[in-house]
């Protein structure tokens, strides 16, 4: 993973290398903390985030990123994924993958206990994986990370040995096994509080992690207390043993300006999901860790089954018709990169960098394309028409739309208006959005999808995939996706995903807009905070010198 440690990426990509080099001392092991901070055991770190996962606290069924961030201190996984894409032992000491790729055998640590006293063993792994696939759990994300239809089952071999079996080879499994969605609840909780997992809270959100959740006030605060018995950090982690701090206090502050203000006034120590506008306020006294999110970048999905985007010409006109570089630069104040490919640059072992710069802004060409398609008339508002029909696309989004994305949408609309292409942006409530989405009653929709494995393209570009908002259905694409999920040869997988990215660059089923970043800003006296591949904070080694 490329870790951008500096907030000052104002000079463009040439200076970026220099910037990274300059920051190398603070950045080599991704850590936040001012040089003057001297480690001190104990104390409290306050971490402010924008939302809490109210009612979606079950790691096995929740799809909220914020839940994954806030449950990581409590839940451990079988393995750990380093930011560079390598996988190291965690609760599993070692593992063997069968030659046919259908069976993974994990040897578990024998010294791990849940914070409610239950032992962590093969039975616990089985109970958790069974819970994920149980129909009552209604899990979409965790169950697909466990292989979805490919998952066959989990078998207990002995107390410390467990086998996971698949119906067909499922390459992303090890990477997925590192995610908090495949983390482990205490079997006691699964037996007695299965219906309360979504509400969560102390005594329910119980794992083996370095912290226990000791209090939860929905919409307001989560307090975590150090687990003194913790001695099973991932292999190679900078810090082994129990957490340094005694207490982690997470505050929910929805307004980004308020979060920033809380940091600058010293009310909180670290803020997450820091808006680019807020970064401008923070000076050198703050340590900023910005991590490009792997997976599908924030993109527009062009519904190819609708008349307006049925032909590639109109899709290309959208891709070239407005100045995306300037829009991303303007909205994100030079801090986020525009996206070139349907995979983010930080998605391990898959990104096709050759696409960068491949399709510059060219409104002249976009106009010519639209003229050639017969969109030559003009109506009273200046939009193009053909046979009396206005050239118009309906873009649906669901509430809430972030301010930055709303600004970007305004720029897309205004840019396309200049070439006579109307974009109507309908912001819908989740319920109404789902209705329109399932009915396919839209020309455009938007999202980014965070994932550490390029297999996420299967649900976005594969025929019938749940996130296939573009409704593309191409046998060649499906074949490549199927081949890529079934092979564990990294080189072969990378080739297949590059072909898929090339396909999308030509077909424009999705128009990638920008690469989202998770931005943490830490105040003076805070150190030792590390981040995972998603840029999400890990607090085991975190310390405060205040």
């Amino acid at each position, binding site marked *: 993973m490329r870790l951008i440690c500096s907030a000052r990426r104002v000079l463009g990509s040439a200076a970026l290398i220099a910037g990274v080099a300059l920051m190398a001392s603070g950045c080599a092991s991704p850590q936040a903390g001012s040089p003057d901070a001297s480690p001190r055991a104990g104390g409290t770190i306050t971490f402010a985030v924008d939302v809490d996962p109210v009612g979606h606290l079950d790691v096995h069924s929740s799809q909220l990123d914020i839940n994954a961030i806030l449950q990581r201190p409590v839940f451990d996984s079988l393995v750990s994924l380093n930011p560079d894409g390598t996988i190291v032992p965690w609760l599993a000491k070692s593992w063997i993958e069968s030659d046919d790729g259908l069976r993974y055998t994990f040897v578990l640590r024998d010294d791990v206990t849940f914070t409610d006293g239950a032992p962590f063993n093969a039975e616990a792994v089985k109970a958790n994986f069974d819970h994920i696939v149980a129909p009552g759990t209604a899990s979409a994300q965790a169950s697909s990370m466990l292989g979805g239809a490919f998952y066959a089952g989990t078998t207990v071999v002995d107390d410390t040995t467990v086998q996971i079996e698949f119906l067909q080879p499922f390459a992303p499994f090890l990477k997925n096994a590192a995610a908090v969605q495949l983390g482990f609840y205490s079997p006691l909780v699964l037996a007695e509080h299965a219906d309360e997992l979504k509400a969560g809270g102390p005594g329910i959100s119980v794992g083996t992690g370095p912290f226990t959740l000791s209090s939860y006030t929905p919409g307001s605060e989560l307090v975590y207390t150090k687990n003194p018995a913790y001695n099973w950090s991932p292999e190679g982690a900078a810090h082994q043993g129990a957490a340094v701090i005694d207490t982690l206090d997470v505050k929910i502050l929805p*307004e980004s300006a308020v979060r920033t*203000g809380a940091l600058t006034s010293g009310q909180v120590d670290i803020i997450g999901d820091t808006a680019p*506008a807020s970064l401008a306020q923070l000076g050198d006294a703050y340590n900023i860790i910005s991590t490009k999110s792997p997976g599908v970048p924030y993109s527009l999905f062009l519904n190819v089954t609708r008349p307006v985007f049925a032909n590639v010409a109109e899709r290309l006109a959208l891709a070239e018709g407005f100045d995306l570089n300037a*829009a991303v630069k*303007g909205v994100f104040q030079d801090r986020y990169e525009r996206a070139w490919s349907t995979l983010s640059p930080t998605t391990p072992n898959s990104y096709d960098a050759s696409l960068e710069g491949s399709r510059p802004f060219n409104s002249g060409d976009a106009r010519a394309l639209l003229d050639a398609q017969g969109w030559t008339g003009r109506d009273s508002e200046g939009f193009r028409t053909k046979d009396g029909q206005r050239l118009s696309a309906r873009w649906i989004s669901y509430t809430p*739309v972030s301010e930055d994305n*709303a600004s970007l949408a*305004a720029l897309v609309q205004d840019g396309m208006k200049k070439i006579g292409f109307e974009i109507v942006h309908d912001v819908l409530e989740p319920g109404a959005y789902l209705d329109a989405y399932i009915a396919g009653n839209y020309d455009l929709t938007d999202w980014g999808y965070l994932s550490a494995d390029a297999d996420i393209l299967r649900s976005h570009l594969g025929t019938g995939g749940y996130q296939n908002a573009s409704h593309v259905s191409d046998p060649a694409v499906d074949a490549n996706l199927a081949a890529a999920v079934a092979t564990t040869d990294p080189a072969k997988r990378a080739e297949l995903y590059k072909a898929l990215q090339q396909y999308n660059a030509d077909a424009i089923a999705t128009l990638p807009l920008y690469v989202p970043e998770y931005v943490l800003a830490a105040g003076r006296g805070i150190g030792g905070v590390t981040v995972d591949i998603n840029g999400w904070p890990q607090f085991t080694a975190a310390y405060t010198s205040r």
Partner: protein
Amino acid sequence: MNSIAGAVRGRWTRRWTGRGTSAPGIIALFVLAILCTMALFPALFTGLDPLATDVSVILKPPSWAHIFGTDQVGRDVYTRVVYGAGYSLGVGFGATVIALVVGVVLGTLAGLVPRALDGVLMRGVEIVMAFPEFLVALFVIAVLGPGPVNVVIAVSVAAVPAYIRVARAETLVVRRAGYVEAAKGLGVHPVWITLRHIIPNTLAPLSVIATIGIGTAIVAAAGLSFLGLGPQDPTPEWGLILSGGRNLLAVAWWVAVFPGVFITATVISATVFGRRLRSRGTGGLR
């Protein structure tokens, strides 16, 4: 936010606006006239497009080129505020007219129907009035869902009980007036009496409350927009523009400050003007 606030504003501003001709009254009328012209003919006030973006002038402070500065996508804040007048005054006016019509119809009915029915209706009104008007509007949004049209409905539902009460009280007074009794004696149809005599008489005091109520409705609608329950970006609506500027206060105060100044100026003008209407003797709050 509340018609009581409106009533109180109207009632007590008399003290400093003075009774006869007053500079505040003239200024208020002038401001309202400008705002209404702005709402109807925004192009007279600005040559720019409220939706036109320009990434080269993002978040620029006020200058001669952009007297209220520019917003996060380089739109001219002044132009957006000018065009927002149409939207915000429209919502305020629309919601008030709906509330007035519904209030007059229900209030007049309540004053004319048998006591038992009147009692039921008025208990219902009292129950709704137990809630702060802004909360009533929020609850209506909870039922109908967010959206610009629903904001108008929510704001008018919240305002209606106050109009019902006044219309009913006026009806009770007017129905006993000599000329109504006389008309009854002459055998004039009750519906005709209601339309010809009772409703016009309730309208006079209600129009004063309504003038002040427009300001109240504008603030309520802007509040709902601010919370993200009304129109969506890029609509130039005052509450929404203000909301878009709330996270930019530390770097660009102008995005949030100017629409707020306009809302406040509109509400003050409507209040002072409503007060003037009353002091001219067109009616009074009882």
